[in-house]
């Protein structure tokens, strides 16, 4: 009887196939059962949106962790593919800008601590840009500017201080 499962859409089988097969196997074969499964298959093709609601079962212990992560990451750990693409675009763009800036500063000012700090700060800066674009994009503009510029300035000043102190020894 499990061949009847092939009548369902692939996504539906991926989500419910195994447990559906277990229930199907537990029932006595009959015309009524075949008609019921056929009706279910037609319904699954007519309403494919029903398979998108919750593709992966959650673990009981995940619920609180997910809620906490959603609170902490100000937008949720579940980034949509669009959010990921936008954040990646901003990160790549920032990497190019940082590289050009670093090369230009090195040509003009050579290896002074302020230029060294730009080089060292570039990687953490990219992480900050990615995080901002991914999780804070839907926040108020002022909040975004405050976190991004504040974060970049604070990080740059800290690394600059380390470079200045490091160059003295």
């Amino acid at each position, binding site marked *: 009887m499990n061949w009847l499962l092939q009548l369902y859409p692939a996504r*539906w089988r991926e989500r*419910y196939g*195994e*447990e*559906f*097969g*277990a*229930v*199907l196997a*537990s*029932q006595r074969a009959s015309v*009524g*059962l075949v008609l*019921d*499964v*056929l*009706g*279910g*298959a037609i*319904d*699954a093709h007519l*309403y494919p*949106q*029903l*398979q*998108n*609601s*919750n593709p992966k*079962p*959650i*673990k*009981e212990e*995940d619920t609180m962790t997910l809620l906490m992560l959603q609170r902490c990451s100000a937008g949720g750990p579940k980034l949509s593919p669009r959010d990921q693409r936008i954040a990646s675009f901003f990160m790549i763009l920032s990497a190019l800008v940082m590289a050009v800036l670093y090369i230009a500063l090195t040509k003009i000012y050579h290896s002074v601590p302020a230029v060294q700090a730009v080089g060292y700060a570039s990687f953490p800066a990219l992480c900050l840009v990615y995080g901002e674009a991914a999780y804070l994009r839907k926040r108020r503009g002022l909040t975004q500017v405050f976190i991004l510029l504040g974060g970049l300035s604070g990080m740059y000043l800290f690394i600059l201080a380390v470079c200045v102190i490091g160059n003295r020894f």
Partner: protein
Amino acid sequence: MIRKTKNDAELDDFGRFSEPALLILVSLAEGPRHGYSMTEDIEAIADVRLGPGTLYGALARLEARGLIEALKSEDRRNPYRLTTLGERALRARLDSMMAVARTGQRRLANA
């Protein structure tokens, strides 16, 4: 006319899956169950054996509405449980049904 609350209306547009969905919610009110266990329980309480096509059509709708959720399981049968929203919808629907049943019985007694 049955007066419906907002929660009660959650089960309204399930079409032919309305009754199976209600039976599933009643079955899950006792605790998490997987599909096979639900069909056995529903047969015991309502004398109706849901076929897998009907059962999973109703389960998918309930899950899409957030009235139930699947729990992770080691074997291939995922148990489901009522969500808070599902519990509210079930209470509202049962209250409506009880109000109708009480009215019907009172009228029959006076007939």
